[in-house]
Protein backbone atom coordinates (compact mmCIF):
# COMPACT_ATOMS: atom_id res chain seq x y z
CA UNK A 1 0.00 0.00 0.00
CA UNK A 2 2.80 2.40 0.85
CA UNK A 3 4.15 1.96 -2.70
CA UNK A 4 0.88 3.41 -4.00
CA UNK A 5 1.24 6.48 -1.79
CA UNK A 6 4.85 6.97 -2.91
CA UNK A 7 3.82 6.63 -6.56
CA UNK A 8 1.14 9.27 -6.00
CA UNK A 9 3.71 11.63 -4.46
CA UNK A 10 6.15 11.06 -7.33
CA UNK A 11 3.47 11.74 -9.93
CA UNK A 12 2.34 14.93 -8.16
CA UNK A 13 5.94 16.12 -7.76
CA UNK A 14 6.64 15.44 -11.43
CA UNK A 15 3.53 17.41 -12.43
CA UNK A 16 4.57 20.22 -10.14
CA UNK A 17 8.09 20.34 -11.63
CA UNK A 18 6.72 20.18 -15.18
CA UNK A 19 4.36 23.09 -14.44
CA UNK A 20 7.16 25.14 -12.85
CA UNK A 21 9.42 24.54 -15.86
CA UNK A 22 6.61 25.23 -18.34
CA UNK A 23 7.28 21.85 -19.97
CA UNK A 24 4.95 20.32 -22.54
CA UNK A 25 5.72 16.79 -21.50
CA UNK A 26 7.94 14.64 -19.35
CA UNK A 27 10.21 12.38 -21.39
CA UNK A 28 11.72 10.26 -18.63
CA UNK A 29 11.91 9.88 -14.87
CA UNK A 30 14.68 8.04 -13.03
CA UNK A 31 13.93 6.96 -9.50
CA UNK A 32 16.35 5.54 -6.92
CA UNK A 33 14.77 3.34 -4.26
CA UNK A 34 16.84 2.74 -1.15
CA UNK A 35 17.09 -0.93 -0.19
CA UNK A 36 16.50 -0.05 3.46
CA UNK A 37 12.85 0.83 2.77
CA UNK A 38 12.19 -2.67 1.44
CA UNK A 39 9.71 -1.46 -1.14
CA UNK A 40 8.32 -3.81 -3.78
CA UNK A 41 9.72 -2.27 -6.96
CA UNK A 42 7.31 -4.04 -9.38
CA UNK A 43 4.40 -2.77 -7.26
CA UNK A 44 5.81 0.77 -7.41
CA UNK A 45 6.29 0.50 -11.19
CA UNK A 46 2.73 -0.74 -11.70
CA UNK A 47 1.34 2.01 -9.49
CA UNK A 48 3.28 4.65 -11.43
CA UNK A 49 2.02 3.26 -14.73
CA UNK A 50 -1.55 3.38 -13.45
CA UNK A 51 -1.24 6.93 -12.11
CA UNK A 52 0.63 8.61 -14.98
CA UNK A 53 -2.51 9.46 -16.92
CA UNK A 54 -1.99 13.20 -17.39
CA UNK A 55 -1.08 14.01 -21.01
CA UNK A 56 2.20 15.58 -19.83
CA UNK A 57 3.22 12.34 -18.13
CA UNK A 58 1.68 9.68 -20.34
CA UNK A 59 4.35 7.78 -22.24
CA UNK A 60 7.24 8.98 -20.08
CA UNK A 61 9.93 6.36 -19.65
CA UNK A 62 10.21 5.35 -15.99
CA UNK A 63 13.34 3.72 -14.62
CA UNK A 64 13.32 2.49 -11.04
CA UNK A 65 16.65 1.41 -9.61
CA UNK A 66 17.26 -0.31 -6.29
CA UNK A 67 20.18 1.27 -4.42
CA UNK A 68 21.96 -1.08 -2.00
CA UNK A 69 21.95 0.14 1.59
CA UNK A 70 25.33 0.95 3.08
CA UNK A 71 25.96 2.10 6.63
CA UNK A 72 28.95 3.42 8.48
CA UNK A 73 29.80 3.88 12.15
CA UNK A 74 30.53 7.41 13.35
CA UNK A 75 32.72 5.99 16.15
CA UNK A 76 34.86 3.17 14.77
CA UNK A 77 34.45 3.76 11.03
CA UNK A 78 33.18 0.25 10.21
CA UNK A 79 30.99 -0.12 7.15
CA UNK A 80 28.31 -2.72 6.55
CA UNK A 81 25.40 -3.51 4.30
CA UNK A 82 21.91 -4.88 4.27
CA UNK A 83 22.85 -8.48 5.09
CA UNK A 84 24.07 -7.49 8.56
CA UNK A 85 21.23 -5.00 8.92
CA UNK A 86 18.63 -7.63 8.07
CA UNK A 87 19.72 -9.78 11.02
CA UNK A 88 19.13 -6.89 13.41
CA UNK A 89 15.86 -5.87 11.78
CA UNK A 90 14.57 -9.39 12.39
CA UNK A 91 14.68 -8.55 16.10
CA UNK A 92 12.33 -5.54 15.90
CA UNK A 93 9.47 -6.16 18.33
CA UNK A 94 6.20 -7.30 16.75
CA UNK A 95 4.20 -4.48 18.35
CA UNK A 96 6.36 -1.85 16.64
CA UNK A 97 5.65 -3.20 13.16
CA UNK A 98 3.08 -1.30 11.13
CA UNK A 99 -0.06 -3.30 10.40
CA UNK A 100 -1.00 -2.99 6.75
CA UNK A 101 -4.26 -4.58 5.58
CA UNK A 102 -2.46 -7.54 4.02
CA UNK A 103 1.02 -7.45 5.54
CA UNK A 104 3.13 -6.33 8.47
CA UNK A 105 5.96 -3.88 7.76
CA UNK A 106 8.94 -2.53 9.64
CA UNK A 107 8.74 1.15 10.69
CA UNK A 108 11.66 1.77 8.30
CA UNK A 109 9.39 0.95 5.37
CA UNK A 110 7.70 4.31 6.08
CA UNK A 111 10.31 6.22 8.10
CA UNK A 112 13.75 5.02 6.92
CA UNK A 113 15.62 7.71 8.87
CA UNK A 114 14.64 5.89 12.05
CA UNK A 115 17.28 3.24 11.29
CA UNK A 116 19.61 4.17 14.21
CA UNK A 117 16.80 3.06 16.55
CA UNK A 118 17.04 -0.50 15.27
CA UNK A 119 20.51 -0.86 13.72
CA UNK A 120 23.70 -0.76 15.78
CA UNK A 121 27.27 -0.92 14.55
CA UNK A 122 28.09 -4.65 14.17
CA UNK A 123 31.67 -3.96 15.31
CA UNK A 124 31.40 -1.68 18.34
CA UNK A 125 27.66 -1.71 19.09
CA UNK A 126 27.02 2.04 19.05
CA UNK A 127 23.82 3.51 17.64
CA UNK A 128 25.82 6.51 16.39
CA UNK A 129 25.73 5.45 12.77
CA UNK A 130 24.94 6.96 9.42
CA UNK A 131 23.57 5.71 6.11
CA UNK A 132 26.00 6.23 3.26
CA UNK A 133 23.53 5.11 0.65
CA UNK A 134 20.24 3.31 0.04
CA UNK A 135 18.27 4.96 2.85
CA UNK A 136 15.59 6.85 1.00
CA UNK A 137 13.67 7.25 -2.21
CA UNK A 138 14.87 9.91 -4.61
CA UNK A 139 13.73 11.14 -8.01
CA UNK A 140 17.27 11.32 -9.38
CA UNK A 141 16.63 12.76 -12.83
CA UNK A 142 13.69 13.99 -14.83
CA UNK A 143 13.88 14.97 -18.49
CA UNK A 144 11.21 17.35 -19.84
CA UNK A 145 10.59 19.13 -23.12
Amino acid at each position, binding site marked *: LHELGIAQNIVESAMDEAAKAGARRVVSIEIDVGELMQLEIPVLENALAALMVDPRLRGAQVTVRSVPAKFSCNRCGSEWGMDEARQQLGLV*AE*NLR*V*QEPDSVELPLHF*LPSLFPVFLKCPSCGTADTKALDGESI*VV*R*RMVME
Partner: protein
Amino acid sequence: VTGPLDFDALASRKKLESIGNVVLVGSGKGGVGKTLVTCGLALSLARRGLRTAIFDMDVHGASVPSYLGVKPPVRSSADGLEPKRKEGVAVMSLALFTGENPIPVRGQSKQGLLTQLFSLTNWGELDYLVVDLPPGTGDELLASLSLFGHKSRMILVTTPSKDALGVVARLGRLARAEKLSVAGAVINMAYVRGRSGKTFPFGRPDKTKISRALGAPIVAELPLDPDVSSKGISKVLASDTGISQGILSLSRLVMKGHDRRAGVPKRGNRRSR
Protein backbone atom coordinates in the same frame (compact mmCIF):
# COMPACT_ATOMS: atom_id res chain seq x y z
CA VAL B 1 15.93 18.33 -13.59
CA THR B 2 18.58 16.46 -11.65
CA GLY B 3 18.76 16.00 -7.91
CA PRO B 4 16.22 14.88 -5.36
CA LEU B 5 12.66 16.20 -5.57
CA ASP B 6 11.33 16.93 -2.10
CA PHE B 7 8.02 15.19 -2.43
CA ASP B 8 7.55 14.92 1.34
CA ALA B 9 7.40 18.72 1.51
CA LEU B 10 4.90 18.84 -1.36
CA ALA B 11 2.77 16.12 0.27
CA SER B 12 2.92 18.03 3.58
CA ARG B 13 1.65 21.21 1.95
CA LYS B 14 -1.27 19.27 0.53
CA LYS B 15 -2.09 17.73 3.93
CA LEU B 16 -2.04 21.19 5.48
CA GLU B 17 -4.75 22.36 3.08
CA SER B 18 -7.23 20.21 5.03
CA ILE B 19 -6.25 21.62 8.42
CA GLY B 20 -7.93 24.78 9.64
CA ASN B 21 -5.70 25.95 12.48
CA VAL B 22 -2.36 24.89 13.88
CA VAL B 23 -1.47 25.65 17.49
CA LEU B 24 2.19 25.20 18.45
CA VAL B 25 2.67 24.57 22.16
CA GLY B 26 6.23 25.42 23.12
CA SER B 27 8.41 26.68 25.90
CA GLY B 28 12.03 26.21 24.97
CA LYS B 29 12.47 24.73 28.47
CA GLY B 30 11.97 21.12 29.43
CA GLY B 31 9.68 19.88 32.18
CA VAL B 32 7.38 22.88 32.39
CA GLY B 33 4.19 21.15 31.22
CA LYS B 34 3.96 21.49 27.44
CA THR B 35 2.49 18.01 27.07
CA LEU B 36 -0.09 18.67 29.79
CA VAL B 37 -1.17 21.85 27.97
CA THR B 38 -1.11 20.15 24.54
CA CYS B 39 -3.20 17.20 25.64
CA GLY B 40 -5.56 19.30 27.77
CA LEU B 41 -6.18 21.77 24.95
CA ALA B 42 -6.74 19.04 22.35
CA LEU B 43 -9.16 17.10 24.57
CA SER B 44 -11.00 20.30 25.40
CA LEU B 45 -11.39 21.26 21.72
CA ALA B 46 -12.54 17.73 20.83
CA ARG B 47 -15.17 17.86 23.59
CA ARG B 48 -16.64 20.88 21.79
CA GLY B 49 -17.11 18.73 18.72
CA LEU B 50 -14.12 20.16 16.89
CA ARG B 51 -12.04 17.84 14.75
CA THR B 52 -8.75 17.84 16.60
CA ALA B 53 -5.40 16.08 16.39
CA ILE B 54 -2.09 16.15 18.22
CA PHE B 55 1.22 15.95 16.36
CA ASP B 56 3.99 15.11 18.82
CA MET B 57 7.11 16.74 17.37
CA ASP B 58 9.36 15.72 20.23
CA VAL B 59 11.84 13.33 18.59
CA HIS B 60 13.96 12.41 21.60
CA GLY B 61 11.50 12.73 24.45
CA ALA B 62 8.09 12.01 22.97
CA SER B 63 5.59 11.60 25.78
CA VAL B 64 2.14 12.28 24.29
CA PRO B 65 1.37 8.56 23.70
CA SER B 66 2.12 7.57 27.31
CA TYR B 67 0.35 10.69 28.60
CA LEU B 68 -2.82 9.76 26.77
CA GLY B 69 -2.42 6.00 27.05
CA VAL B 70 -2.18 5.23 23.34
CA LYS B 71 0.20 2.50 22.22
CA PRO B 72 1.77 0.87 19.16
CA PRO B 73 1.17 -0.73 16.75
CA VAL B 74 0.19 1.79 14.12
CA ARG B 75 -2.06 0.64 11.29
CA SER B 76 -1.88 1.87 7.75
CA SER B 77 -4.57 2.13 5.11
CA ALA B 78 -4.86 3.33 1.53
CA ASP B 79 -4.96 6.87 2.99
CA GLY B 80 -1.70 6.57 4.92
CA LEU B 81 -0.65 5.93 8.50
CA GLU B 82 -3.67 5.96 10.77
CA PRO B 83 -3.29 8.09 13.90
CA LYS B 84 -4.27 6.59 17.23
CA ARG B 85 -7.51 7.92 18.76
CA LYS B 86 -8.17 9.09 22.29
CA GLU B 87 -11.60 10.52 23.10
CA GLY B 88 -11.98 11.95 19.62
CA VAL B 89 -8.42 13.27 19.37
CA ALA B 90 -6.19 11.82 16.65
CA VAL B 91 -2.62 11.29 17.91
CA MET B 92 0.60 10.76 15.96
CA SER B 93 4.08 10.47 17.42
CA LEU B 94 7.39 8.84 16.51
CA ALA B 95 7.14 6.97 19.81
CA LEU B 96 4.33 4.91 18.26
CA PHE B 97 7.02 3.37 15.98
CA THR B 98 9.84 3.08 18.48
CA GLY B 99 8.17 2.20 21.79
CA GLU B 100 10.59 2.38 24.69
CA ASN B 101 13.64 2.59 22.42
CA PRO B 102 15.67 5.82 22.35
CA ILE B 103 15.84 7.70 19.03
CA PRO B 104 19.53 8.55 18.56
CA VAL B 105 19.26 10.56 15.34
CA ARG B 106 21.24 13.65 14.48
CA GLY B 107 19.90 17.06 13.57
CA GLN B 108 19.66 16.74 9.83
CA SER B 109 17.56 13.58 10.02
CA LYS B 110 15.04 15.07 12.40
CA GLN B 111 13.42 17.54 10.04
CA GLY B 112 13.12 14.82 7.41
CA LEU B 113 11.60 12.37 9.88
CA LEU B 114 9.02 14.85 11.13
CA THR B 115 8.10 16.03 7.64
CA GLN B 116 7.77 12.42 6.50
CA LEU B 117 5.61 11.47 9.47
CA PHE B 118 3.35 14.48 9.00
CA SER B 119 3.01 13.86 5.25
CA LEU B 120 2.31 10.13 5.63
CA THR B 121 -0.33 10.47 8.34
CA ASN B 122 -3.98 10.31 7.42
CA TRP B 123 -5.11 13.38 9.37
CA GLY B 124 -8.33 13.77 7.42
CA GLU B 125 -9.99 17.17 7.71
CA LEU B 126 -9.19 18.94 10.95
CA ASP B 127 -10.35 22.09 12.67
CA TYR B 128 -7.30 22.11 14.95
CA LEU B 129 -3.90 20.49 14.91
CA VAL B 130 -2.19 20.95 18.27
CA VAL B 131 1.58 20.47 18.09
CA ASP B 132 3.65 19.43 21.10
CA LEU B 133 7.12 20.93 20.63
CA PRO B 134 10.20 19.66 22.44
CA PRO B 135 12.48 21.84 24.58
CA GLY B 136 14.98 23.98 22.72
CA THR B 137 14.94 26.16 19.66
CA GLY B 138 16.61 23.71 17.30
CA ASP B 139 15.66 21.31 14.55
CA GLU B 140 12.16 20.38 15.68
CA LEU B 141 11.07 23.99 16.18
CA LEU B 142 12.53 25.00 12.83
CA ALA B 143 10.80 22.02 11.22
CA SER B 144 7.49 23.16 12.74
CA LEU B 145 7.98 26.66 11.31
CA SER B 146 8.73 25.21 7.86
CA LEU B 147 5.74 22.91 7.98
CA PHE B 148 3.12 25.16 9.57
CA GLY B 149 4.53 28.69 9.72
CA HIS B 150 1.88 30.67 7.90
CA LYS B 151 -1.01 28.79 9.44
CA SER B 152 0.12 28.50 13.03
CA ARG B 153 -0.02 30.41 16.28
CA MET B 154 2.04 29.69 19.35
CA ILE B 155 1.09 29.17 22.97
CA LEU B 156 3.99 29.57 25.39
CA VAL B 157 4.17 27.47 28.54
CA THR B 158 6.28 28.50 31.52
CA THR B 159 6.53 28.06 35.24
CA PRO B 160 6.87 31.16 37.46
CA SER B 161 10.53 30.20 38.04
CA LYS B 162 12.93 32.95 37.00
CA ASP B 163 15.14 30.41 35.22
CA ALA B 164 12.29 28.96 33.18
CA LEU B 165 10.95 32.39 32.32
CA GLY B 166 14.26 33.52 30.83
CA VAL B 167 14.38 30.51 28.51
CA VAL B 168 10.72 30.77 27.50
CA ALA B 169 11.17 34.47 26.75
CA ARG B 170 13.88 33.50 24.24
CA LEU B 171 11.44 31.28 22.38
CA GLY B 172 8.91 34.13 22.38
CA ARG B 173 11.49 36.42 20.81
CA LEU B 174 12.36 33.82 18.17
CA ALA B 175 8.67 33.31 17.37
CA ARG B 176 8.13 37.03 16.85
CA ALA B 177 11.30 37.30 14.76
CA GLU B 178 9.86 34.54 12.58
CA LYS B 179 6.58 36.54 12.35
CA LEU B 180 4.69 33.85 14.23
CA SER B 181 1.80 35.08 16.32
CA VAL B 182 2.13 34.30 20.03
CA ALA B 183 -1.49 34.05 21.10
CA GLY B 184 -0.93 33.68 24.81
CA ALA B 185 1.03 32.13 27.63
CA VAL B 186 0.16 29.58 30.30
CA ILE B 187 1.81 29.66 33.71
CA ASN B 188 2.03 26.07 34.88
CA MET B 189 2.83 24.97 38.45
CA ALA B 190 1.62 28.41 39.49
CA TYR B 191 0.33 27.11 42.82
CA VAL B 192 -0.57 24.03 44.82
CA ARG B 193 -4.00 23.83 46.40
CA GLY B 194 -3.89 22.33 49.90
CA ARG B 195 -6.22 22.21 52.89
CA SER B 196 -5.08 25.61 54.02
CA GLY B 197 -5.53 27.19 50.59
CA LYS B 198 -3.03 27.96 47.85
CA THR B 199 0.71 27.78 48.28
CA PHE B 200 3.16 29.07 45.70
CA PRO B 201 6.22 26.82 45.17
CA PHE B 202 7.98 29.41 42.99
CA GLY B 203 6.58 32.46 44.81
CA ARG B 204 3.35 34.19 43.88
CA PRO B 205 3.47 34.71 40.09
CA ASP B 206 3.53 38.33 38.98
CA LYS B 207 1.34 38.04 35.90
CA THR B 208 2.10 41.54 34.62
CA LYS B 209 5.82 40.97 34.82
CA ILE B 210 5.60 37.50 33.23
CA SER B 211 3.34 38.76 30.46
CA ARG B 212 5.76 41.59 29.72
CA ALA B 213 8.75 39.21 29.70
CA LEU B 214 7.03 36.83 27.31
CA GLY B 215 5.35 39.48 25.18
CA ALA B 216 2.06 37.62 25.42
CA PRO B 217 -1.09 37.79 27.53
CA ILE B 218 -1.37 35.28 30.37
CA VAL B 219 -4.33 33.12 29.50
CA ALA B 220 -4.25 30.63 32.35
CA GLU B 221 -2.51 29.76 35.59
CA LEU B 222 -2.47 26.02 36.19
CA PRO B 223 -1.83 24.40 39.56
CA LEU B 224 0.56 21.56 40.26
CA ASP B 225 -2.09 18.87 40.62
CA PRO B 226 -1.04 15.32 41.57
CA ASP B 227 -4.33 14.02 40.17
CA VAL B 228 -2.95 14.55 36.65
CA SER B 229 -0.43 11.77 37.30
CA SER B 230 -2.64 9.50 39.35
CA LYS B 231 -5.98 9.84 37.50
CA GLY B 232 -4.95 11.13 34.08
CA ILE B 233 -5.61 14.41 32.29
CA SER B 234 -8.95 13.26 30.92
CA LYS B 235 -10.50 12.73 34.36
CA VAL B 236 -9.00 15.94 35.73
CA LEU B 237 -10.52 17.89 32.85
CA ALA B 238 -13.91 16.33 33.48
CA SER B 239 -14.14 17.75 37.03
CA ASP B 240 -14.09 21.32 38.28
CA THR B 241 -10.39 21.83 39.01
CA GLY B 242 -7.82 24.56 38.56
CA ILE B 243 -6.50 22.60 35.59
CA SER B 244 -9.91 22.27 33.92
CA GLN B 245 -10.68 25.97 34.44
CA GLY B 246 -7.32 27.03 33.04
CA ILE B 247 -7.58 24.74 30.02
CA LEU B 248 -11.11 26.05 29.39
CA SER B 249 -9.75 29.62 29.28
CA LEU B 250 -7.01 28.48 26.92
CA SER B 251 -9.41 26.70 24.55
CA ARG B 252 -11.62 29.82 24.49
CA LEU B 253 -8.63 31.93 23.55
CA VAL B 254 -7.61 29.51 20.83
CA MET B 255 -11.12 29.46 19.37
CA LYS B 256 -11.66 33.22 19.72
CA GLY B 257 -11.85 35.16 16.51
CA HIS B 258 -11.26 32.10 14.40
CA ASP B 259 -13.59 30.64 11.89
CA ARG B 260 -13.71 27.17 13.34
CA ARG B 261 -13.71 25.70 9.88
CA ALA B 262 -11.32 28.24 8.39
CA GLY B 263 -9.16 26.66 5.76
CA VAL B 264 -11.05 23.40 5.89
CA PRO B 265 -13.17 23.38 2.79
CA LYS B 266 -16.35 21.37 2.88
CA ARG B 267 -16.43 18.58 0.37
CA GLY B 268 -17.43 19.80 -3.08
CA ASN B 269 -17.35 23.38 -1.88
CA ARG B 270 -13.64 24.04 -2.10
CA ARG B 271 -13.72 26.86 -4.62
CA SER B 272 -16.78 28.69 -3.37
CA ARG B 273 -15.36 29.62 0.02
